């Protein structure tokens, strides 16, 4: 049912945890299913130099949280903004139709974190 990539992220999450004194932190809940994703990140020289995720949710949400940190790491906030759902889905080897919301949750949370950087100027 889940791709090998999803299961790999699920069993071996990348960048799990929470950063102290982050430059941006965002937590978003998917109201439909109750999944919660939290991202914290730090910038250095205009790039996302550190990023961590925490999640309470289904396997797909965990995999997307893990994968989105890999995709965002090393990017400038502007580059990270352009991350598309297709790229995230490709990174996890696709999701079952019922689990597509997990990719949206990951991107919404990343956006919310990037919004904070913008607000701070």
């Amino acid at each position, binding site marked *: 049912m889940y791709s090998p990539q999803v*299961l790999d992220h*699920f069993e071996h999450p990348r960048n*799990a945890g929470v950063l102290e004194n982050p430059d941006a932190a965002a937590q978003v809940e998917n109201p439909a299913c109750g999944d919660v994703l939290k991202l914290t990140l730090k910038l250095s020289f205009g790039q996302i130099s550190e990023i961590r995720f*925490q*999640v*309470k949710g*289904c396997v797909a949400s*965990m995999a997307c949280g893990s994968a989105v940190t890999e995709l965002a790491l090393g990017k400038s906030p502007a580059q990270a903004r352009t991350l598309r759902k297709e790229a995230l889905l490709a990174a996890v080897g696709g999701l079952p139709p*019922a689990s597509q919301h997990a990719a949206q949750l990951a991107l919404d949370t990343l956006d919310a974190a990037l919004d904070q950087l913008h607000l701070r100027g």
Partner: protein
Amino acid sequence: MHRAYMDANATTPLLPEVMEAMRPFWMEDFGNASSIHRQGQRARTAVDRAREALAEFFYCRESEVVFNSGGTEGDNTALFGLVRPGDHLITTAIEHSAVLRAAERLEEHGAEVTFVPPLANGLIDPAAIREAIRPNTRLISVMLANNETGVLQPVEEMGKIAAETGVFFHIDAVQGAGKVAFDVRRFGCQLLSISAHKMHGPKGVGALYVRRGTPLEPLVVGGSHERRQRAGTENVPGIVGLGRAAELAMACLEDGTIARMTGLRDRLEKGILKLSDTGVNGGGAPRVANTTNIRFEQVEGEALVIALDLKGVAVSGGSACHSGSTEPSHVLMAMGLDKNAARASLRFSLLRTATEADVDQVLSVVPEAVEHLRAISPVAAGTAG
């Protein structure tokens, strides 16, 4: 890797004796039980023998056993076969979808339906059934054992209420078969459905007990099979398998198997409850021996099911037909759990053949899997916000 199958309430494997009993009826003894030649006679004899076994299993007459395609058909037949527009049906909020969806269909067609909610421990209070009775109440339909929690309903008391008030009584006994002794007279029901695949028999076959004289309209019409109660060429291998499974189920009720399963289930439950923030749903009520439904606070049940599967333990969250959907269990919600608690709950249901090694395996992998999921959760780690 040793795999521990803890999802018997979803389905069970054939016991070897069942497989052996069925084997001749696919190729050698393939006859149609309605044919009068030799092949047909052999099939008929086999179906008759299975009917004898089921009559003993239900504790009824052979003429009161109707073979069908399983629990869903039995439940549908009971409801659609008795309740007409304008009639009132009493059922419960924790039934299997085979009853719930049929009840909703009846509502759409002009029947009235009351869905009695359970108490917090998962029990349906017989007094609530009595209070729900109206002058036009035609049928009460209640499950014997709940598929998610294993909670056993006080069907005998409900049967007395039905008899006193002149209302028909159907029991969905699918999850009770092979776990508690049946006696349809003592239960006080006119109808009772079972399914072979929940009791180490084959899938797609079951039986409905229909008390003599019950004005049940058949769901499936056509030929005159099953005393015109259920048309269609008999599934001879399936019926033979059900018959053998029923014989073995009766034996296991008397040979200490149930006590052994209770011991395994209780050890599993106690071991898991050592983890913090866990609890048993329906733990305060009488339950079948093989089932426990455990809440792991701050964990998403679906993620835990997959984590355990990767470690060789098969369990399910909620009921099997709900996995993959985002709906929390209607049974646990009806018992008063909130969405998060319902979604944090898993069902462990043991096969009759479960071993100490199976329980050891579960206990060796559950703590690590739960800790892994909690460690990564912003809610459990207390860093939310």
